[in-house]
């Protein structure tokens, strides 16, 4: 344990209002800590720069999953376990369910939060590609009130995001419009559990007329990847390229080339750039094959 608890302050004001007031009073001085599954690792390694922390664990305003007719609102303080156990999410947003299932082990799923995953902004974060694919919107809160921003484009660079120093993520909203899509997700790590991803894909697709009917051309597709760039990526160029086309070997080949051009994987302690690029191409190809297979001619 390479930090001295005596050097740190941690307070728990108990309400969202008190926390945002604190953040407004002393911007940049207090680091919010929810479940701690990222920050406490840094702390134990002696690598946590912040000395003052404010607990947002268990704040009622950040908990809960609200199911509305058009969207669901996931409290930023929801844990992965809560995500996994929610029926509507399992039915309509399975990419988020699978991301929650492969984050850490059960003990870490009981503490890690969706809001924490976003703000920690690791390029390898498990749930962020799913949020990109579903085009989540974030509700941010501060003393100035709430504002709603699209999640796509929220991350502007490695660990940089469009979050003011006195803002917290309050909720993540997902529109309930994806039930007729094919949902494809795959995480590639060094082992089957408790692994930081080497490549992570979350993708949605629909053929013309929806799954199982109509023509076989791609009507709508979203492809998001983690661990291949400083931020989680939506591959909008690839999406544009395949839209309106039928999936055939030629398209898959072109898609691979487009994927390779869109990503910037690196060599690091876990893997190599070449491997990541190859696997990313393979997984997108697999997704396109699965999408093609949803077409059942009349």
């Amino acid at each position, binding site marked *: 344990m390479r930090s001295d608890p005596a050097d740190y302050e941690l307070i728990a004001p108990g309400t969202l209002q008190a926390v945002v007031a604190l953040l407004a009073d002393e911007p940049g001085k207090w680091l919010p800590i929810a479940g701690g599954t990222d920050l406490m690792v840094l702390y134990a390694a002696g690598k946590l720069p912040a000395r003052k922390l404010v607990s947002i664990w268990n704040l009622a305003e950040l908990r809960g999953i609200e199911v509305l007719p058009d969207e669901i609102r996931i409290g930023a303080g929801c844990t992965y376990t809560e995500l996994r156990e929610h029926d509507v999410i399992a039915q309509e947003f399975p990419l988020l369910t699978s991301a929650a299932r492969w984050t850490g082990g059960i003990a*870490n799923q009981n503490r890690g939060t969706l809001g924490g995953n976003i703000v920690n902004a690791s390029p390898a974060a498990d749930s962020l590609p799913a949020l990109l694919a579903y085009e989540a919107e974030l509700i941010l809160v501060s003393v100035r009130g709430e504002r709603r921003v699209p999640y796509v484009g929220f991350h502007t660079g490695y660990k940089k995001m469009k979050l003011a120093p006195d803002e917290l993520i309050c909720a993540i909203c997902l529109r309930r419009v994806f039930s007729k899509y094919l949902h494809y997700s795959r995480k590639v790590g060094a082992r089957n559990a408790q692994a930081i991803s080497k490549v992570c894909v979350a993708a949605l697709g629909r053929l013309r007329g929806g799954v199982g009917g109509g023509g076989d051309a791609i009507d709508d597709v979203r492809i998001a990847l983690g661990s291949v760039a400083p931020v989680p990526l939506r591959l909008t160029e690839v999406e544009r390229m395949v839209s309106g086309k039928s999936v055939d070997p030629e398209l898959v080949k072109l898609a691979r080339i487009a994927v390779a051009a869109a990503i910037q994987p690196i060599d690091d302690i876990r893997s190599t750039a070449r491997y990541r690029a190859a696997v990313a191409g393979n997984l997108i190809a697999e997704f396109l094959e699965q999408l093609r297979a949803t077409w059942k001619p009349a």
Partner: protein
Amino acid sequence: MSHSSGNGAKRELSLTVNGKPETVRVFPMERLLDVLRQELGLTGTKEGCGEGECGSCSVLMDGKLVNSCLIPALQAAGANLTTIEGVAEGPQLSALQAAFLECGGAQCGICTPGMILSASHLLKKKPEPTLDDIREALAGNLCRCTGYMQIFEAVAEAARRKSSV
């Protein structure tokens, strides 16, 4: 309210551990693992990695399995904790403990407390787990000695015994 209580101030925190109310005087950023081991002398919970990977520090907090090395003391205030010391019912070993002993689920024993709490958490949620359920539930508890096979047997055996009671 006043924000700054001054760096380095200890706080009095109350929590329940294995059914017993406890009050400790600790820094809010003390790890729950260290509160259990050092303040309360409950050394059954172990530190294997300090980063939430090995699960040796697993305890139940308000009925949920957590890695105590990743929890600041302040966030455990008011919580209901179960550690390995609270698993046996007096001198009688629990079904899991007995099964671990008989099936070879414990070799060196260092992962065993966390493993037993993890398995107990599973059996509460799924009293009749499949092998895949067991594998998944224990994936956050690393064991270097057993290769897991006899741990799976122990958990399955404990489930069988509890269901036949």
